[in-house]
């Protein structure tokens, strides 16, 4: 599976866990239904889990058959969708899109505006999971979300750290593993939330430069800037690189398997990344798409996804029947750090250049 926002191949461990869950997983059989909806989902783990646990239930409940399509990684899918839409074709009616890709698509009016009145379950969503065009039309609806948190090896760090500031602690020299790209590590947001009072400190260039300057102080502590998740996960488990940022759900699975690792939500919050459902404007199944998205927003489906897929729910917690342990396995009540996706649209090249110069230079 691939995290929608970063294009990095997803850990096999999670896939292994899912394969275990669905040991005798049934093949997706397209029932003789009146209507078919083509749904684009990130290939690999996500698609497999949705095919096994979610789509058959949806077809049973609504009579709409789902033809799931594996989306390629990176932004290739966005490019394919927008080129096809120009020709009036929709390779998928509904697609799961990363937040940056969703914004880019919105800039080109790629997404069919959605009608919240037709989707009563969207009222349960946490507000940030409704993506809007600048003029207020709805461009997308939150599909799945997940956390990136502060992770540690329990043998090297008997006490869990409580703040992202631990990354800056001189005592942790050469001990950290951090994501290698500005657009998937979200460390500028972490810096702003930890030292400058919140991500709004990144509003202007002066604030961004200040965050870069502060973040550069972390460099001596970083042993590995990783693109490959497996590399860091392995090093974290062995204690070779005992601290860093990583995915909350997978770290939990590794801990459950007996590895000496833990995931901590720092007091500044975990990083909350997400994918959204969006409908191509070339789609001729807009009504079915509304039914689908509405179905996916139901609290019990979000709970099912938390249990089976390991994603964090997009609806308010009080509506969920998740136990405390089940909720903690995928989320936290501490307000999250939400990435400044807008910056990765408007200042993508500048941020990338500054970032590369900072870590390489």
């Amino acid at each position, binding site marked *: 599976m691939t995290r929608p926002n970063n294009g990095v191949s997803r850990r096999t461990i999670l896939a292994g866990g899912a394969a275990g869950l669905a040991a005798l997983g049934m093949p997706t059989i397209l029932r003789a239904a009146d209507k078919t909806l083509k749904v684009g989902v990130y290939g690999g783990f996500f698609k497999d889990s949705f095919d096994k646990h979610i789509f058959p239930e949806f077809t049973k409940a609504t009579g709409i058959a789902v033809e799931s399509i594996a989306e390629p990684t990176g932004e290739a899918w966005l490019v394919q969708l927008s080129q096809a839409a120009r020709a009036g074709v929709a390779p998928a009616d509904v697609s799961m899109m990363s937040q940056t890709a969703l914004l880019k698509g919105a800039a080109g009016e790629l997404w069919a505006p959605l009608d919240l009145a037709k989707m009563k379950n969207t009222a349960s969503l946490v507000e940030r999971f409704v993506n809007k065009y600048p003029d207020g039309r709805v461009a997308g609806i939150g599909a799945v979300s997940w956390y990136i948190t502060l992770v540690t090896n329990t043998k090297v760090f008997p006490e869990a750290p409580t703040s992202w500031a631990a990354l800056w602690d001189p005592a942790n020299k050469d001990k950290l593993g951090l994501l290698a*790209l500005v657009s998937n590590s979200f460390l500028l947001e972490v810096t702003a939330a930890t030292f400058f009072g919140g991500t709004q400190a990144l509003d202007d260039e002066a604030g961004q430069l200040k965050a870069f300057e502060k973040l550069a102080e972390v460099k001596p502590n970083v042993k590995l800037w990783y693109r490959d998740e497996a590399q860091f996960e392995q090093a974290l488990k*062995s204690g070779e690189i005992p601290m860093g940022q990583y995915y909350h759900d997978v770290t939990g699975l590794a801990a459950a398997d007996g590895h000496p690792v833990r995931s901590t939500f720092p007091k500044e919050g975990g990083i909350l990344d997400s994918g959204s459902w969006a409908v191509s404007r070339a789609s001729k199944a807009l009504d079915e798409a509304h039914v689908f998205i509405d179905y996916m927003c139901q609290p019990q489906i979000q709970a099912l996804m938390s249990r089976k897929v390991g994603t964090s729910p997009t609806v308010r917690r009080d509506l969920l029947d998740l136990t405390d342990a089940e909720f903690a396995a995928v989320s936290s009540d501490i307000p999250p750090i939400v990435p400044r996706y807008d910056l990765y649209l408007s200042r993508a090249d500048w941020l990338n250049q500054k970032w590369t110069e900072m870590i390489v230079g």
Partner: protein
Amino acid sequence: MTAARPQRLQDYAPLVFPALMLTVFFVVPFGIMVAISFFRRVQGAFYEPDFVFDNYARFLSAFFGQVLGFSLVLATLVALVAVTIAFPFTFLLARLPRRWQVVWLVALLSIVSLSEVIVGFAWSTLFSRTAGVTNILVALGLMSEPMSLSPSFGALLTGLSYHAFPYTVLVLYPALARLDPTLMEAARTLGASPPRAFLTVVVPALRNTILATMIMVFVFALGSYLLPQLLGRPSNWTLSVLITDQAIYQSNLPFAAAMAVFLVLVSLALVGLSLLVGRKEAAQ
């Protein structure tokens, strides 16, 4: 040996197939890349056909110059290390009984079948503090406590040289297997020790082969983008790593293409230069 000069058009016929392959698989893709390198990057979208120099302008900075310089130095070092180890190895290999030669060559080919990812992970484990070779040194009493050797420049150089080694041997093997054994015998008859005969007779006799092999390894190492990420620190990242970043993660194909074109031109120039130097020396 002189071949008859081609007289008629059909004498060129044997060239058609290679020329066609070269056109389809090199000239056309490279042409597309050159074209894209002049396209206009649209931030927040993709790119639009245009003819601008922005992508090259962005590349011409001290920062990217430094990265390019590092990549060239690294590739040169890898070529030197790989050939320095592989040349005597292949020389000895070519003198083994046929059966043992086959065993060695099969072993080398099986290394070639390993992907770069596996090679990188294997070396990062070998260089780790928790499971690496330094634990053996500690057990032998040579070190007081295990330490981590990766990521570092040394780890990267080792990984790349290891990865290039089998190819180097396979390129050197035909030349060394065909080497006239009487050359060594003559040198020995004249009183040279085996190492001296090797260094003063075999090495100079195969100077051109060595140079050609080094160029191959150089180009091979220059294109590496996985091992620098697995075994190196960010300061050890090659230009190829940054090209990958731009192409895959930033969707900035015009800039990635411009960097790639620049890299190809610089390496072609260096290869041409070394061939020129080699020919001049041969002429003297």
